[in-house]
């Protein structure tokens, strides 16, 4: 089975590389016809506002709404695209709303507040998992059907707070950070083994 990687903008090549290392044939998805032969999808990191425009103009946004069965793994901007609700986004921003979470864009702050952290992620062992957060979104609320698989404790303007950074709801998996930037393939592997192949 082919796994597609949304390739409108962002670090989609890193995701292709991760999947490649796991022995999976990955395919770039730029137009609706690219969806034909795929059975799962990755939403990469990048600028969510830009991707949102391009989803609309390419017709991919509409085409994806007809493929509700697809398991999707989203990182950073990909998490924003999956979220039910976005704050500090643009009013016209596309989000599919498959994940019952509320996210705040750039919630950790500007680039100077971007960071790396060592995380404990449920079902990924041994810890830690190195996580790279780049102008990342903050998950502010999760619905009762959402499983939080990892959190990070962070200094938000002098107030230390713990927030979810890996979440799963059924066939949807998302992280606020970029596993694709570290060479650690375990979250991709989890997606393939526990979500894509178990269906």
């Amino acid at each position, binding site marked *: 089975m082919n796994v597609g990687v949304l390739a409108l903008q962002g670090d989609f090549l890193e995701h292709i590389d991760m999947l490649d290392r796991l022995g999976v044939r990955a395919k770039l998805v730029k137009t609706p016809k690219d969806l034909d032969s795929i059975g799962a999808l990755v939403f990469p990191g*990048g600028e969510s506002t830009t991707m949102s*425009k391009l989803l609309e103009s390419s017709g991919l946004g509409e085409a994806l709404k007809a493929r509700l069965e697809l398991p999707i793994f989203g990182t950073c901007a990909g998490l924003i695209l999956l979220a039910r609700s976005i704050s500090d986004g643009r009013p016209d921003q596309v989000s599919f709303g498959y994940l019952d979470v509320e996210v705040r864009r750039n919630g950790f702050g*500007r*680039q100077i507040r971007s*960071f790396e952290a060592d995380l404990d992620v449920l079902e990924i062992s041994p810890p*830690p998992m190195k996580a790279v957060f780049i102008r990342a979104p903050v998950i502010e609320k999760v619905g009762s059907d959402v499983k939080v698989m990892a959190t990070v404790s962070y200094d938000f303007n002098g107030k230390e707070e713990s927030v979810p950074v890996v979440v799963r709801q059924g066939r949807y998996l998302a992280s606020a950070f970029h596993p694709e930037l570290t060479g650690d393939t375990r979250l991709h592997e989890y997606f393939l083994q526990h979500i894509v192949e178990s269906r």
Partner: protein
Amino acid sequence: MSTEHQEFATTRVKRGLAEMLRGGVIMDVVNAQQAKVAEDAGAVAVMALERVPADIRRDGGVARMSDPALIMEIQETVTIPVMAKARIGHFAEAQILEHLQVDYIDESEVLTPADYVHHIDKWAFEIPFVCGATNLGEALRRISEGAALIRSKGEAGTGDVSQAVTHLRSIVGDIKKITQADDSEVYAWAKELRAPIDLVLEVRKSGKLPVPLFCAGGLATPADASLVMQLGAEAVFVGSGIFKSDDPGKRARAIVEATTHFRDASIVAKVSKNLGPAMVGIEMDKIDVHLAERGW
């Protein structure tokens, strides 16, 4: 859960933002209204400056860092990353930009250089830097000074893409040659490029720069974007080309589409229709000041 090992401003974090901008368009803007037009069109970032290169070229005089008030206004207007330019070697301007928390600093030949010998020590900053280069040696020297992103210089403010193409071909071409170099040849390469041997060895092994390579300098049309992306650029900067054209919003959207679908001529053709006049531009052999020659 574990919080002990949080680190800020690492090389990976600095280069990481550049990775996120790939396949996108970074647009020069001179005020909040233009910044909004750029964001509306799907820009991945904006470059905040007082005058676009075409006007710097026309007006002459010393070009410096923009007014902090202008940069802050643009930061408040858009949610995408905001970059700003400092003069080559002017680390005090860079310190101000870091204080403003811009997302990227461009140590730019478009502004009048402040130091004709030294570039900024970019490792000393938490904000990542982008620098221009005309060839591989220049690119590797900037990376050795801490640049987290390289762009071709091209010839800013001309609307003439030829220099960007020359620089891109030179960088990509020399990378290809180095991957073929044997153990004794790499030292001659380092000498010829005036670049550190460890970076030359890294390029030989990976077949690419250690940081992303974007294109800048003279792009004005969707076809220009498609051209440089096919030549190996990973994203594009468009300066004067958008807001010096007749219908900036439409042209900006078209260049965004062409950068994403750069190999699909049917889409590039479609978005190129009825854009109105592009910036008039000025040919390379008609200009007096060659900005690309700044930088050492």
